[in-house]
């Protein structure tokens, strides 16, 4: 079986880019962060894979700045709220003075 340069070029592109895309889809393609231990346990690594599932806290959108509330205080509340509060509790505690009584 003979193979010419065009076919070889196509195979190289398919294997390299196809392999990378497949690995990305499987979530095994990591391009940043620290080392990864055997069994998939990551040592503080952030996956460069666009299909990687982020932790819930990272998916919370940034809160807009409000009058009378400094951004530093908002950040502190936000991080504390995301870490500790159940759904809705963070918003109720932060904006207690601004929201109408229920």
């Amino acid at each position, binding site marked *: 079986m003979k193979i010419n*340069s065009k076919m070889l*070029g196509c195979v190289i592109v398919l*294997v*390299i880019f196809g392999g990378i895309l497949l690995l990305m889809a499987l979530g095994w393609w990591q*391009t940043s962060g620290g080392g990864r231990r055997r069994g998939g346990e990551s040592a503080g690594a952030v996956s460069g894979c666009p299909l990687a599932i982020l932790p819930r806290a990272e998916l919370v959108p940034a809160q807009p700045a409000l009058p009378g509330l400094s951004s530093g205080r908002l950040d502190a509340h936000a991080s504390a709220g995301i870490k500790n509060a159940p759904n809705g509790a963070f918003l109720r505690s932060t904006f207690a003075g601004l929201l109408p009584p229920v």
Partner: protein
Amino acid sequence: MKLLRKQFWRKRRLWPRYALQFLFFSLVALFSLNQTLVQNGGGLPFFQNISLHALCPFGGVETLAHLLITGTLLQKVRVSAVFLLELVFILAVLFGPVFCGWVCPLGTVQEWVGKMGRHWFGTRRYNHFIPRRLDVILRYARYLVLTWVLYLTLRSASLVFQDYDPYFALFHFWRGEVAPTALLILEITLFLALFVERPWCKYACPLGAVLGLSNLIRIFTIQRRAGTCLQKGEACTTLCPMNIPVSQKTVVRDHQCLTCLECTSEAGCPVSGTVFLGTEARP
């Protein structure tokens, strides 16, 4: 004139290789430049996590032994480098070290510089400056480099080779993190490329040493049909960047072959279907 025109179009038939070399060189340069821009607050966000360490399969070679022994990667080396190494191995078992001949950006740059040398000295003189015997001995130096790098890497558990790596220097020379030794080796390599084709690949590349072994077991090999060979011009031997005497072999299994296809009837060989890439015919 007619012969020259024929030669020109013959060379153009290898355009897929030249296109892929340009593509991979551009991609690696883009990722490297983008990383610098990201560090300065700009750059393309989609590529910001991709570093050169993530794209170098030799990082995978270095870390493989470390991974097998300790279960962790070397500092700076990414999982992607190991996966990329696996993909390169798959290609190498099929077609030989096509990574070196078709993908490696350092090989591409050496080839581009070599074109100037070929233009100055002519095809017959260029790449034939080193005496044959010395050349054959020097080719095994890359296995010594490989052994040395693996030994130091395992001993220190860090990327020791980075301080000597011309590939790293080529795509990081504008940043302060490149060791002077790596820059010096890059300069020497590019200077020598004016006289010898791919000097780094031939005499020093540790990844080339690993991948070169695949020539012994590869499925698709470069073959020469003795029946139709003219045995006169020896264009295949003259054009081979690694100085392999293709005209004296029926099947090329030399540890230095890059599968660049310069010797085949698609490019160098004037007789159609005489030198080609294919599976060996069963007797």
